[in-house]
Protein backbone atom coordinates (compact mmCIF):
# COMPACT_ATOMS: atom_id res chain seq x y z
CA UNK A 1 0.00 0.00 0.00
CA UNK A 2 1.31 3.47 -0.79
CA UNK A 3 1.33 6.28 1.69
CA UNK A 4 -1.52 8.08 -0.04
CA UNK A 5 -3.61 4.94 0.07
CA UNK A 6 -2.82 4.54 3.71
CA UNK A 7 -3.86 8.09 4.45
CA UNK A 8 -7.08 7.67 2.56
CA UNK A 9 -7.84 4.46 4.38
CA UNK A 10 -7.16 5.73 7.88
CA UNK A 11 -8.23 9.31 7.30
CA UNK A 12 -11.10 9.27 9.72
CA UNK A 13 -9.11 7.68 12.52
CA UNK A 14 -6.14 9.97 12.02
CA UNK A 15 -8.21 13.11 11.97
CA UNK A 16 -10.01 12.07 15.12
CA UNK A 17 -6.72 11.27 16.84
CA UNK A 18 -5.31 14.60 15.71
CA UNK A 19 -8.30 16.44 17.09
CA UNK A 20 -8.25 14.47 20.32
CA UNK A 21 -4.56 15.09 20.81
CA UNK A 22 -5.02 18.80 20.35
CA UNK A 23 -8.04 18.77 22.63
CA UNK A 24 -6.48 16.86 25.51
CA UNK A 25 -3.40 19.09 25.49
CA UNK A 26 -5.51 22.24 25.36
CA UNK A 27 -7.88 21.06 28.05
CA UNK A 28 -5.16 20.02 30.49
CA UNK A 29 -3.29 23.25 29.82
CA UNK A 30 -6.46 25.16 30.62
CA UNK A 31 -7.03 23.24 33.85
CA UNK A 32 -3.37 23.63 34.74
CA UNK A 33 -3.61 27.37 34.14
CA UNK A 34 -6.59 27.74 36.46
CA UNK A 35 -4.98 25.72 39.23
CA UNK A 36 -1.44 26.95 38.63
CA UNK A 37 -2.13 30.67 38.37
CA UNK A 38 -4.41 30.42 41.39
CA UNK A 39 -1.72 28.67 43.41
CA UNK A 40 0.90 31.17 42.26
CA UNK A 41 -1.25 34.10 43.33
CA UNK A 42 -1.84 32.56 46.75
CA UNK A 43 1.79 31.83 47.59
CA UNK A 44 3.58 34.66 45.88
CA UNK A 45 4.28 36.53 49.11
CA UNK A 46 4.96 33.53 51.31
CA UNK A 47 8.43 31.97 50.91
CA UNK A 48 7.39 28.87 52.89
CA UNK A 49 4.26 28.24 50.86
CA UNK A 50 6.19 28.90 47.68
CA UNK A 51 8.74 26.25 48.50
CA UNK A 52 6.10 23.64 49.28
CA UNK A 53 4.02 24.32 46.19
CA UNK A 54 7.01 24.35 43.86
CA UNK A 55 8.36 21.16 45.43
CA UNK A 56 5.06 19.35 44.89
CA UNK A 57 4.74 20.53 41.32
CA UNK A 58 8.35 19.66 40.64
CA UNK A 59 7.98 16.18 42.08
CA UNK A 60 4.94 15.50 39.94
CA UNK A 61 6.88 16.48 36.86
CA UNK A 62 9.68 14.10 37.82
CA UNK A 63 7.40 11.11 37.87
CA UNK A 64 7.57 9.49 34.42
CA UNK A 65 4.40 9.68 32.38
CA UNK A 66 3.77 5.98 31.94
CA UNK A 67 4.26 5.51 35.67
CA UNK A 68 1.84 8.29 36.48
CA UNK A 69 -0.74 6.95 34.05
CA UNK A 70 -0.27 3.53 35.59
CA UNK A 71 -0.78 4.79 39.10
CA UNK A 72 -3.86 6.79 38.19
CA UNK A 73 -5.55 3.88 36.45
CA UNK A 74 -6.27 2.41 39.84
CA UNK A 75 -8.41 5.38 40.74
CA UNK A 76 -9.63 6.66 37.41
CA UNK A 77 -9.68 3.69 35.11
CA UNK A 78 -8.54 3.76 31.51
CA UNK A 79 -9.04 6.33 28.77
CA UNK A 80 -9.27 10.12 29.01
CA UNK A 81 -9.40 10.65 32.82
CA UNK A 82 -5.93 9.43 33.89
CA UNK A 83 -4.28 11.08 30.91
CA UNK A 84 -6.09 14.36 31.52
CA UNK A 85 -5.22 14.40 35.21
CA UNK A 86 -1.60 13.43 34.65
CA UNK A 87 -1.11 16.06 31.96
CA UNK A 88 -2.68 18.71 34.18
CA UNK A 89 -0.29 17.74 36.95
CA UNK A 90 2.66 18.03 34.54
CA UNK A 91 1.64 21.50 33.43
CA UNK A 92 1.73 22.93 36.93
CA UNK A 93 5.42 23.58 37.53
CA UNK A 94 6.17 25.97 34.66
CA UNK A 95 2.87 27.76 35.16
CA UNK A 96 3.22 28.24 38.91
CA UNK A 97 6.85 29.20 38.63
CA UNK A 98 6.20 31.81 35.99
CA UNK A 99 3.17 33.15 37.81
CA UNK A 100 5.23 33.75 40.92
CA UNK A 101 8.15 35.27 39.05
CA UNK A 102 5.90 37.40 36.86
CA UNK A 103 3.86 38.80 39.72
CA UNK A 104 6.89 39.48 41.88
CA UNK A 105 8.76 41.33 39.17
CA UNK A 106 6.16 44.01 38.57
CA UNK A 107 7.78 47.45 38.85
CA UNK A 108 7.70 48.67 42.44
CA UNK A 109 6.95 52.27 41.49
CA UNK A 110 3.87 51.17 39.55
CA UNK A 111 2.63 49.20 42.54
CA UNK A 112 3.23 52.15 44.83
CA UNK A 113 1.36 54.47 42.50
CA UNK A 114 -1.52 52.00 42.39
CA UNK A 115 -1.68 51.92 46.18
CA UNK A 116 -1.33 55.68 46.33
CA UNK A 117 -4.37 56.36 44.20
CA UNK A 118 -6.49 54.20 46.45
CA UNK A 119 -6.65 50.78 44.79
CA UNK A 120 -7.49 47.99 47.21
CA UNK A 121 -5.28 44.89 47.15
CA UNK A 122 -7.74 42.90 45.09
CA UNK A 123 -8.35 45.64 42.53
CA UNK A 124 -4.62 46.13 42.26
CA UNK A 125 -4.06 42.42 41.62
CA UNK A 126 -6.65 42.28 38.88
CA UNK A 127 -6.05 45.62 37.15
CA UNK A 128 -2.32 46.09 37.56
CA UNK A 129 -0.33 43.05 38.73
CA UNK A 130 -1.91 40.31 36.63
CA UNK A 131 -1.97 42.30 33.37
CA UNK A 132 1.67 43.26 33.85
CA UNK A 133 2.70 39.72 34.79
CA UNK A 134 0.69 38.19 31.95
CA UNK A 135 3.48 38.07 29.33
CA UNK A 136 5.66 36.01 31.67
CA UNK A 137 2.76 33.82 32.77
CA UNK A 138 1.86 33.18 29.15
CA UNK A 139 5.39 31.94 28.47
CA UNK A 140 4.99 29.51 31.35
CA UNK A 141 1.68 28.26 29.96
CA UNK A 142 3.23 27.80 26.56
CA UNK A 143 6.20 25.89 27.99
CA UNK A 144 3.75 23.62 29.78
CA UNK A 145 1.70 23.03 26.65
CA UNK A 146 4.77 22.06 24.64
CA UNK A 147 5.79 19.54 27.29
CA UNK A 148 2.29 18.09 27.18
CA UNK A 149 2.28 17.64 23.42
CA UNK A 150 4.90 14.92 23.42
CA UNK A 151 3.94 13.50 26.81
CA UNK A 152 0.37 12.90 25.71
CA UNK A 153 1.52 10.42 23.11
CA UNK A 154 2.20 7.72 25.66
CA UNK A 155 -1.36 7.97 26.90
CA UNK A 156 -2.36 5.64 24.12
CA UNK A 157 -0.97 2.77 26.15
CA UNK A 158 -3.74 3.27 28.68
CA UNK A 159 -6.35 3.75 25.97
CA UNK A 160 -6.01 7.51 26.17
CA UNK A 161 -6.74 9.91 23.32
CA UNK A 162 -4.45 11.20 20.63
CA UNK A 163 -1.91 10.35 18.00
CA UNK A 164 -0.08 8.00 20.33
CA UNK A 165 -2.69 5.54 19.20
CA UNK A 166 -1.30 5.64 15.68
CA UNK A 167 2.16 4.92 17.04
CA UNK A 168 0.85 2.15 19.25
CA UNK A 169 -1.07 0.68 16.36
CA UNK A 170 2.11 0.70 14.33
CA UNK A 171 3.87 -1.18 17.11
CA UNK A 172 1.14 -3.74 17.35
CA UNK A 173 0.95 -4.34 13.63
CA UNK A 174 4.60 -5.07 13.08
CA UNK A 175 5.26 -6.81 9.86
CA UNK A 176 2.30 -5.30 8.09
CA UNK A 177 2.81 -2.82 5.30
CA UNK A 178 1.28 0.08 7.19
CA UNK A 179 3.17 -0.27 10.49
CA UNK A 180 5.84 2.18 9.51
CA UNK A 181 3.29 4.61 8.06
CA UNK A 182 1.40 4.50 11.35
CA UNK A 183 4.44 5.35 13.42
CA UNK A 184 5.71 8.04 11.12
CA UNK A 185 2.30 9.65 10.80
CA UNK A 186 1.91 9.51 14.54
CA UNK A 187 5.22 11.26 15.09
CA UNK A 188 4.61 13.77 12.32
CA UNK A 189 1.12 14.51 13.56
CA UNK A 190 2.41 15.26 17.05
CA UNK A 191 4.98 17.66 15.63
CA UNK A 192 2.24 19.40 13.66
CA UNK A 193 0.13 19.72 16.81
CA UNK A 194 3.16 21.34 18.43
CA UNK A 195 3.56 23.79 15.58
CA UNK A 196 -0.12 24.69 15.65
CA UNK A 197 0.04 25.26 19.39
CA UNK A 198 3.03 27.54 18.99
CA UNK A 199 1.10 29.53 16.39
CA UNK A 200 -1.90 29.65 18.70
CA UNK A 201 0.17 31.03 21.56
CA UNK A 202 1.74 33.58 19.29
CA UNK A 203 -1.72 34.78 18.30
CA UNK A 204 -2.92 34.85 21.89
CA UNK A 205 0.11 36.90 22.88
CA UNK A 206 -0.52 39.34 20.08
CA UNK A 207 -4.15 39.79 21.06
CA UNK A 208 -3.88 39.89 24.84
CA UNK A 209 -0.69 41.83 25.43
CA UNK A 210 -1.23 45.58 25.07
CA UNK A 211 1.21 47.49 22.92
CA UNK A 212 2.39 49.43 25.94
CA UNK A 213 4.19 46.39 27.35
CA UNK A 214 5.05 44.51 24.20
CA UNK A 215 8.81 44.28 23.85
Amino acid at each position, binding site marked *: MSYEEYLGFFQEDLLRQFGDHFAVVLLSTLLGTIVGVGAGILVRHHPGGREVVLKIAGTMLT*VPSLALYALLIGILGLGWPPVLLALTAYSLLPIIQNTIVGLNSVNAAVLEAARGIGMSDRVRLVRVELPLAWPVILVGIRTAAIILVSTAALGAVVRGPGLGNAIYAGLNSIGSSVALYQVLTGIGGVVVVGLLLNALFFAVARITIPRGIRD
Partner: protein
Amino acid sequence: MATGQADALLLVPPGAPVPSRVGTGLRPGFTRRLMTTPIVLALLLLALYLWVQSRDLDIVEDRTLTQGGVLKALAQHLQLVGLSSLAVLAIAVPLGILVTRPSFRRASPGTIAIASVGQTIPSFGVIVLFALTLGFGSRYVIYALILSTILPVLSNTIAGLQQIEPALKEAASGVGMTPFQVLTRIELPLAVPVLLAGLRTSIVLNVGTATVAAFTGAGGLGSLIVTGLVQNRDVITVVGGALTAILALALDHLTRMTQELLTPRGL
Protein backbone atom coordinates in the same frame (compact mmCIF):
# COMPACT_ATOMS: atom_id res chain seq x y z
CA MET B 1 31.91 36.32 41.67
CA ALA B 2 33.14 37.07 38.23
CA THR B 3 35.43 39.88 39.30
CA GLY B 4 36.78 37.84 42.17
CA GLN B 5 37.86 35.05 39.94
CA ALA B 6 39.38 37.38 37.40
CA ASP B 7 41.32 39.15 40.11
CA ALA B 8 42.64 35.86 41.39
CA LEU B 9 43.85 35.00 37.92
CA LEU B 10 45.74 38.24 37.52
CA LEU B 11 47.91 37.39 40.48
CA VAL B 12 49.02 34.08 39.04
CA PRO B 13 52.10 33.94 36.83
CA PRO B 14 51.67 32.16 33.50
CA GLY B 15 52.35 28.46 33.58
CA ALA B 16 51.53 28.03 37.25
CA PRO B 17 48.73 25.63 38.09
CA VAL B 18 45.46 27.48 38.70
CA PRO B 19 42.81 25.97 40.95
CA SER B 20 39.85 25.49 38.66
CA ARG B 21 37.30 25.54 41.40
CA VAL B 22 37.30 28.21 44.02
CA GLY B 23 36.15 25.79 46.71
CA THR B 24 33.14 23.64 45.96
CA GLY B 25 30.25 22.12 47.75
CA LEU B 26 28.94 22.11 51.16
CA ARG B 27 26.55 24.89 51.88
CA PRO B 28 24.55 25.17 55.08
CA GLY B 29 21.80 22.61 55.40
CA PHE B 30 23.46 20.20 53.00
CA THR B 31 23.10 17.14 55.18
CA ARG B 32 19.41 17.79 55.66
CA ARG B 33 18.90 18.23 51.96
CA LEU B 34 20.99 15.17 51.24
CA MET B 35 19.11 12.86 53.57
CA THR B 36 15.46 13.98 53.40
CA THR B 37 14.57 12.60 50.00
CA PRO B 38 16.24 9.19 50.38
CA ILE B 39 14.46 8.72 53.70
CA VAL B 40 11.12 9.63 52.19
CA LEU B 41 11.72 7.32 49.23
CA ALA B 42 12.78 4.49 51.51
CA LEU B 43 9.56 4.93 53.47
CA LEU B 44 7.57 4.84 50.24
CA LEU B 45 9.32 1.62 49.22
CA LEU B 46 8.51 0.14 52.57
CA ALA B 47 4.89 1.18 52.25
CA LEU B 48 4.74 -0.36 48.78
CA TYR B 49 6.25 -3.60 50.02
CA LEU B 50 3.84 -3.82 52.93
CA TRP B 51 0.90 -3.09 50.69
CA VAL B 52 1.84 -5.87 48.28
CA GLN B 53 2.35 -8.28 51.15
CA SER B 54 -1.05 -7.42 52.55
CA ARG B 55 -2.86 -8.37 49.38
CA ASP B 56 -3.81 -11.84 48.39
CA LEU B 57 -1.85 -12.36 45.19
CA ASP B 58 -3.20 -14.65 42.52
CA ILE B 59 -0.99 -16.82 40.36
CA VAL B 60 -0.19 -14.23 37.75
CA GLU B 61 0.64 -11.56 40.27
CA ASP B 62 2.60 -13.94 42.40
CA ARG B 63 4.73 -15.08 39.53
CA THR B 64 5.43 -11.58 38.25
CA LEU B 65 6.14 -9.88 41.53
CA THR B 66 8.93 -12.13 42.72
CA GLN B 67 11.96 -10.46 44.23
CA GLY B 68 14.12 -11.79 41.46
CA GLY B 69 11.74 -10.64 38.77
CA VAL B 70 11.42 -7.14 40.10
CA LEU B 71 15.14 -6.74 40.67
CA LYS B 72 15.85 -7.99 37.18
CA ALA B 73 13.51 -5.39 35.73
CA LEU B 74 15.17 -2.72 37.82
CA ALA B 75 18.63 -3.77 36.71
CA GLN B 76 17.59 -3.72 33.06
CA HIS B 77 16.12 -0.28 33.50
CA LEU B 78 19.24 1.06 35.18
CA GLN B 79 21.39 -0.39 32.44
CA LEU B 80 19.35 1.30 29.73
CA VAL B 81 19.30 4.62 31.53
CA GLY B 82 22.94 4.48 32.55
CA LEU B 83 24.38 3.58 29.17
CA SER B 84 22.30 6.07 27.24
CA SER B 85 23.00 8.85 29.73
CA LEU B 86 26.72 8.30 29.51
CA ALA B 87 26.48 8.35 25.74
CA VAL B 88 24.42 11.53 25.89
CA LEU B 89 27.09 13.21 28.01
CA ALA B 90 29.83 11.98 25.70
CA ILE B 91 28.08 13.38 22.65
CA ALA B 92 26.25 16.47 23.88
CA VAL B 93 29.02 18.11 25.89
CA PRO B 94 31.68 18.09 23.15
CA LEU B 95 29.02 19.09 20.63
CA GLY B 96 27.92 21.94 22.86
CA ILE B 97 31.50 23.08 23.31
CA LEU B 98 32.06 22.91 19.57
CA VAL B 99 28.98 24.95 18.73
CA THR B 100 29.98 27.71 21.14
CA ARG B 101 33.46 28.20 19.73
CA PRO B 102 33.90 31.51 17.94
CA SER B 103 34.17 29.90 14.55
CA PHE B 104 30.69 28.44 14.84
CA ARG B 105 28.75 31.55 15.88
CA ARG B 106 26.56 31.75 12.79
CA ALA B 107 24.76 28.49 13.54
CA SER B 108 22.59 30.01 16.30
CA PRO B 109 19.17 30.98 14.92
CA GLY B 110 18.75 27.75 13.00
CA THR B 111 19.63 25.69 16.05
CA ILE B 112 16.94 27.34 18.12
CA ALA B 113 14.26 26.59 15.54
CA ILE B 114 15.37 22.97 15.28
CA ALA B 115 15.39 22.64 19.03
CA SER B 116 11.83 23.95 19.35
CA VAL B 117 10.56 21.38 16.90
CA GLY B 118 12.75 18.68 18.40
CA GLN B 119 11.13 19.23 21.77
CA THR B 120 7.75 18.08 20.53
CA ILE B 121 8.89 14.80 18.96
CA PRO B 122 7.34 12.08 21.13
CA SER B 123 9.99 9.76 22.51
CA PHE B 124 7.44 6.98 22.41
CA GLY B 125 7.38 7.37 18.67
CA VAL B 126 11.14 7.41 18.34
CA ILE B 127 11.57 4.15 20.24
CA VAL B 128 8.88 2.40 18.24
CA LEU B 129 10.33 3.80 15.02
CA PHE B 130 13.78 2.46 15.80
CA ALA B 131 12.29 -0.87 16.76
CA LEU B 132 10.43 -1.08 13.46
CA THR B 133 13.28 0.04 11.27
CA LEU B 134 16.34 -1.28 13.06
CA GLY B 135 15.03 -4.11 15.15
CA PHE B 136 14.06 -5.05 18.65
CA GLY B 137 16.35 -5.32 21.61
CA SER B 138 18.14 -3.08 24.07
CA ARG B 139 20.79 -1.86 21.66
CA TYR B 140 18.40 0.04 19.44
CA VAL B 141 16.43 1.22 22.40
CA ILE B 142 19.60 2.82 23.70
CA TYR B 143 20.10 4.61 20.38
CA ALA B 144 16.54 5.86 20.56
CA LEU B 145 17.03 6.94 24.18
CA ILE B 146 20.13 8.88 23.24
CA LEU B 147 18.28 10.68 20.50
CA SER B 148 15.28 11.42 22.70
CA THR B 149 17.15 12.74 25.71
CA ILE B 150 20.09 14.55 24.20
CA LEU B 151 18.35 17.89 23.80
CA PRO B 152 18.32 19.13 27.44
CA VAL B 153 22.00 18.40 27.91
CA LEU B 154 22.97 19.95 24.60
CA SER B 155 20.99 23.15 25.03
CA ASN B 156 22.10 23.55 28.64
CA THR B 157 25.75 23.02 27.72
CA ILE B 158 25.40 25.73 25.11
CA ALA B 159 23.52 28.06 27.48
CA GLY B 160 25.97 27.43 30.31
CA LEU B 161 28.95 28.27 28.13
CA GLN B 162 27.32 31.28 26.54
CA GLN B 163 26.42 32.92 29.83
CA ILE B 164 30.04 33.30 30.86
CA GLU B 165 31.21 36.90 30.71
CA PRO B 166 33.63 37.42 27.84
CA ALA B 167 35.70 39.65 30.12
CA LEU B 168 36.55 36.61 32.19
CA LYS B 169 37.82 34.63 29.23
CA GLU B 170 39.84 37.59 28.06
CA ALA B 171 41.43 37.93 31.47
CA ALA B 172 42.33 34.27 31.37
CA SER B 173 43.97 34.38 27.98
CA GLY B 174 45.56 37.65 28.98
CA VAL B 175 47.32 35.81 31.79
CA GLY B 176 48.71 33.44 29.23
CA MET B 177 46.33 30.50 29.19
CA THR B 178 45.89 28.56 26.00
CA PRO B 179 42.34 28.26 24.64
CA PHE B 180 42.24 24.69 25.90
CA GLN B 181 43.20 25.79 29.39
CA VAL B 182 40.62 28.56 29.30
CA LEU B 183 38.04 25.95 28.39
CA THR B 184 38.96 23.39 31.01
CA ARG B 185 39.84 25.69 33.87
CA ILE B 186 37.40 28.55 33.46
CA GLU B 187 34.55 27.85 31.09
CA LEU B 188 33.64 24.29 31.98
CA PRO B 189 33.70 24.74 35.77
CA LEU B 190 31.48 27.80 35.44
CA ALA B 191 29.12 25.99 33.09
CA VAL B 192 28.87 22.94 35.33
CA PRO B 193 25.77 24.00 37.34
CA VAL B 194 23.70 24.70 34.25
CA LEU B 195 25.04 21.61 32.52
CA LEU B 196 24.12 19.37 35.43
CA ALA B 197 20.65 20.90 35.56
CA GLY B 198 20.27 19.80 31.96
CA LEU B 199 21.62 16.37 32.79
CA ARG B 200 19.08 16.06 35.55
CA THR B 201 16.23 16.84 33.18
CA SER B 202 17.69 14.41 30.71
CA ILE B 203 18.02 11.55 33.18
CA VAL B 204 14.48 11.97 34.46
CA LEU B 205 13.24 12.06 30.89
CA ASN B 206 15.32 8.97 30.23
CA VAL B 207 13.82 6.96 33.07
CA GLY B 208 10.38 7.74 31.73
CA THR B 209 11.20 7.02 28.13
CA ALA B 210 12.95 3.80 29.03
CA THR B 211 9.65 2.45 30.34
CA VAL B 212 8.59 2.18 26.72
CA ALA B 213 11.52 -0.15 26.16
CA ALA B 214 9.28 -2.86 27.50
CA PHE B 215 7.30 -2.79 24.27
CA THR B 216 10.36 -3.51 22.23
CA GLY B 217 11.72 -6.40 24.20
CA ALA B 218 14.36 -4.59 26.18
CA GLY B 219 12.77 -5.21 29.55
CA GLY B 220 12.96 -2.68 32.33
CA LEU B 221 10.37 -1.57 34.85
CA GLY B 222 8.03 -0.76 32.02
CA SER B 223 7.56 -4.46 31.53
CA LEU B 224 5.84 -4.64 34.89
CA ILE B 225 3.48 -1.89 33.92
CA VAL B 226 2.77 -3.49 30.56
CA THR B 227 2.20 -6.90 32.09
CA GLY B 228 -0.20 -5.33 34.53
CA LEU B 229 -2.07 -3.58 31.74
CA VAL B 230 -2.20 -6.56 29.45
CA GLN B 231 -3.19 -9.00 32.18
CA ASN B 232 -5.50 -6.45 33.75
CA ARG B 233 -3.92 -6.80 37.17
CA ASP B 234 -3.82 -3.43 38.93
CA VAL B 235 -1.38 -4.57 41.60
CA ILE B 236 1.33 -5.25 39.06
CA THR B 237 0.65 -1.99 37.25
CA VAL B 238 0.83 -0.02 40.47
CA VAL B 239 4.06 -1.72 41.55
CA GLY B 240 5.63 -1.01 38.18
CA GLY B 241 4.46 2.58 38.21
CA ALA B 242 5.51 3.21 41.79
CA LEU B 243 8.97 1.71 41.33
CA THR B 244 9.54 3.74 38.19
CA ALA B 245 8.47 6.90 39.98
CA ILE B 246 10.74 6.16 42.94
CA LEU B 247 13.64 5.42 40.63
CA ALA B 248 13.15 8.71 38.80
CA LEU B 249 12.97 10.65 42.05
CA ALA B 250 16.04 8.88 43.40
CA LEU B 251 18.14 9.61 40.32
CA ASP B 252 16.88 13.19 40.25
CA HIS B 253 17.97 13.58 43.87
CA LEU B 254 21.35 12.04 43.20
CA THR B 255 22.04 14.35 40.28
CA ARG B 256 20.83 17.36 42.24
CA MET B 257 23.23 16.62 45.08
CA THR B 258 26.09 16.08 42.64
CA GLN B 259 25.21 19.39 41.06
CA GLU B 260 25.39 21.11 44.40
CA LEU B 261 28.70 19.47 45.25
CA LEU B 262 30.29 20.44 41.96
CA THR B 263 29.02 24.01 41.81
CA PRO B 264 31.88 26.40 42.53
CA ARG B 265 31.42 28.10 45.88
CA GLY B 266 31.24 31.60 44.58
CA LEU B 267 28.18 30.97 42.39
